[in-house]
């Protein structure tokens, strides 16, 4: 009887010891600020202390880069005297609470540089116009600046390119000065392909070798004309009206055709359309090719074009919604012509709307609509996907293989016979696949360790291309301390951009100060203010604004503090 007690006591003691050790460790981080009552030594009012920042970081599982970079930013901010509570969040919850509900203090996101963002409407208008500051809107920081709004409206509606360009320049200056959501850095992307088997690799803007143009131009060197494309993730859904991920959408662009395509640089070129006629600010007449057939043999006509836009509106396609909402009506005005009528002038109509809306075969979708109803067509898997594009859906075994074959009757023929796309689930498998020769092309970014591994196979060549998107910290101007422009500027100057690039990216990145990529020469403003890493300058910025520090280095608001949301002119 006694001895079992002995064991129990032993266990209990061990447990208590351990938990006390554990607890002190847990508590250690919170204890320091909690003992702030001792701060009576200097005369700072505790109520004046700058509130703690809850900084959301991506989980390590989802993105090690954002995780590590986030930890480094948090450390650096602490050095300035801010209190930072760095928390990891899953993307799903960070996105719902931050991106959508705007309930964050600050969090880090990587925005992708898609081709349709070459026209910087998304960066400059959607992300910063005050109309998008409500829940669900892209103005996540809640940047509200009437001067900026005026410029943004000019930029969005004026069809004159030069006027738009000059507005864009000014807007970038304002953003660099007010830093509502500063870009930090971007990757230098490295795609790999097998140069013994293929040549003429044509990476496109924002997509690298996953671009439509690459699939059109890549040329086999041998008799094996099947391109083995390796990616990390599988495609999910081939329904153009309901798909959400880029991997799906850009695969669909090989199967379906839009009226206009964005070329390797992101500039609109005619595709199904042979002629664009801007009749006035809100009316555009389009002539289409008459030699295109869907994969089931039916000809593609203006009926299908009109149907696509009407149908997307009618069934409320979430994928098309953002693009087609500017359209008032689509009318057939000739054997091969349709006329779009817009509600109001919309500058990126051609580059964004026409390039993103894929033309659907009316005979298939109207039948599906009859059978399934509006919701049904949106939840339909649309297999086999029948479009009119240069590649034809062959088969798809989810998580194993997805195959496209070349459309022999297409007006512009690809050089390859087929694409087999294999998802490898993890980059490690993909890299080994490249080395073994079973993967001939991938748009997955090769990290330094991957490059080392890939070097084993001399046939593998690397294509380098800058990323058009960048890593951004979304501040929230609706909450303190981010409501104050000086705090934001100081915090921005405390982001150790170069250190992150050196340590986390092993040198494979570039600091950025504008959301528009410097390779996007037409829109990029190289002369904006650059709030690069400089802790002294950051302190100075705060000091000049009247911020104070106690003897423990903690940051306090100025006396009689008045918030300055944006830089006064």
């Amino acid at each position, binding site marked *: 009887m006694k001895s079992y007690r002995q064991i129990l006591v032993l266990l209990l003691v061990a447990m208590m010891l351990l938990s006390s050790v554990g607890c002190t460790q847990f508590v250690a981080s919170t204890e320091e600020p909690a003992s702030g009552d001792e701060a009576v030594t200097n005369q700072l009012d505790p109520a004046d202390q700058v509130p703690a920042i809850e900084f959301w970081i991506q989980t390590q599982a989802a993105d090690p880069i954002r995780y590590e970079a986030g930890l480094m930013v948090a450390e650096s901010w602490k050095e300035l005297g801010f209190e930072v509570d760095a928390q990891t969040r899953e993307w799903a919850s960070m996105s719902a609470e931050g991106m959508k509900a705007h309930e964050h203090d600050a969090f880090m996101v990587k925005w992708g540089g898609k081709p349709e963002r070459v026209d910087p409407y998304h960066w400059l208008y959607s992300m910063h116009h005050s109309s998008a500051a409500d829940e669900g809107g892209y103005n996540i920081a809640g940047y509200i600046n009437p001067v900026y709004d005026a410029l943004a409206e000019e930029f969005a509606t004026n069809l004159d390119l030069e006027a738009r360009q000059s507005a864009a320049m000014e807007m970038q200056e304002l953003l660099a000065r007010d830093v509502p959501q500063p870009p930090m850095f971007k990757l230098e992307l490295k795609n790999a392909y097998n140069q013994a088997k293929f040549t003429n690799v044509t990476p496109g803007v924002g997509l690298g070798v996953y671009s439509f143009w690459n699939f059109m131009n890549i040329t086999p060197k041998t008799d094996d004309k099947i391109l083995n494309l390796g990616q990390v993730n599988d495609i999910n859904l081939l329904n153009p009206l309901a798909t959400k991920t880029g991997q799906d959408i850009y695969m669909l662009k090989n199967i379906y055709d839009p009226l206009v395509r964005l070329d390797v640089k992101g500039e609109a070129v005619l595709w199904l359309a042979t002629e664009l006629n801007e009749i006035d600010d809100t009316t555009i007449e389009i002539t289409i090719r008459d030699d295109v057939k869907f994969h089931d043999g039916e000809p593609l006509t203006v009926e299908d074009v009109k149907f696509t836009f009407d149908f997307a509106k009618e069934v409320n396609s979430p994928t098309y919604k953002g693009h087609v909402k500017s359209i008032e009506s689509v009318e057939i005005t000739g054997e091969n012509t349709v006329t779009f009528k817009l509600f109001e002038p919309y500058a990126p109509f051609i580059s964004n709307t026409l390039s993103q809306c894929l033309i659907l075969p009316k005979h298939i979708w109207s039948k599906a609509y009859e059978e399934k109803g509006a919701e049904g067509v*949106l939840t339909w898997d649309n297999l086999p996907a029948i479009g009119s594009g240069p590649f034809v859906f062959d088969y798809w075994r989810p998580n194993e293989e997805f195959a496209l074959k070349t459309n022999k009757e297409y007006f512009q023929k690809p050089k390859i016979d087929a694409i087999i796309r294999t998802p490898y689930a993890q980059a490690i498998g993909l890299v080994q696949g490249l080395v073994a020769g079973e993967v001939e092309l991938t748009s997955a970014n090769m990290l330094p360790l991957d490059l080392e591994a890939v070097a084993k196979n001399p046939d593998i060549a690397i294509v380098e291309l800058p990323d058009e998107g960048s890593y951004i910290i979304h501040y929230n101007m609706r909450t303190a301390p981010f409501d104050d422009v000086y705090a934001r500027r100081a915090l921005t100057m405390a982001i150790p951009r170069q250190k992150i690039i050196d340590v986390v990216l092993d040198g494979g990145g570039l600091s950025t100060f504008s959301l528009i990529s410097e390779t996007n020469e037409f829109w990029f403003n190289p002369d904006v203010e650059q709030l690069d890493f400089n802790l002294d300058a950051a302190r100075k910025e705060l000091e000049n604004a009247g911020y104070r520090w106690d003897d423990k280095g903690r940051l306090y608001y100025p006396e009689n503090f008045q918030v300055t949301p944006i830089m006064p002119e």
Partner: protein
Amino acid sequence: MRLAKYLFKRLIIVFITLFILVSIVFLMFRVIPGDPVSMFIDSGLDAESQQLMMKLYGLDKPIPEQYIIYMKNLFRGDLGNSFTYGKSVVEVISERFLNTLVLTLTSLMIAFTLGIKTGSFLAWHRNSKIDLVGTILALIVRCAPVFWTGMILLSIFAFKLEWLPLGGMTSVGQNFTGFWDKILSLDFLKHLILPAITSALYSMATPTLLMRTSMLEVIKEDYIELAYAKGIPEKKVRRRHAMRTALLPVVTIFAVQAGLAIGGSVLVETVFRWPGMGREIVLAVSSRDYPMAQGAFLFIGFATIVFNLIADVLYAYLDPRVSLG
């Protein structure tokens, strides 16, 4: 007849268990922060499109209503459509489930065949050095984390020696005519070896140790002595009398282990990139594909329960002393 009645009774319990399980999981998913739509804001879903999506997924309705709809559909065998794949959950899952089943059953078969042999061998040589070493070895492999063992085996056999593929289920460009064609192909078997051995190593300890203990107990039984006295050859005594009886608890545990292995398959599937159920559930949870995750959970839970049921029935079948009811 009694079996039928017993099964009926048990099935009702299974039914209730599943009902509770589904309800718990349903509720848990509604309180997970985040939703399946807002994840795609950055790829171009604006506020209006998000709302459309939510409506499309039926997530705009109040939770009790969603629950009732889900339950109604469930009774009709409809687990809904996956948000991610746009296909019916049943369709997607049954395929993944099959992959998981092939892997787990193969590995368990290996584990139990070897485990039973080793266990009875160790018991037969009880108190010898072989017994001690064998027992400790079995304990050690039982304690090594399965994902770690997998990583080590991958490094050695796939990376260093390049004997076997690094992961996945089939090689690129294989054209299979059907399920059986696939799983009987050499290519598939090559991919199967490492993951199957990894999880077999992990699950081998249980049958080995159990068989050993069970055997040790049986060996001491009077009927073994009688069998010898009857002049039955040693081999037959061991096989027919000792092993046959000692197998009872081991065979029972097979079903239980199968249930556990399916639940734990996610680790091996992650390391070996096996397109199975476990990996799907991780994906579904992180992408908030509620119907998919709920369905996967239901499948795994169902499998666990059914395997437990099989274990009980099997035990009763194998051991005439046990009557069901």
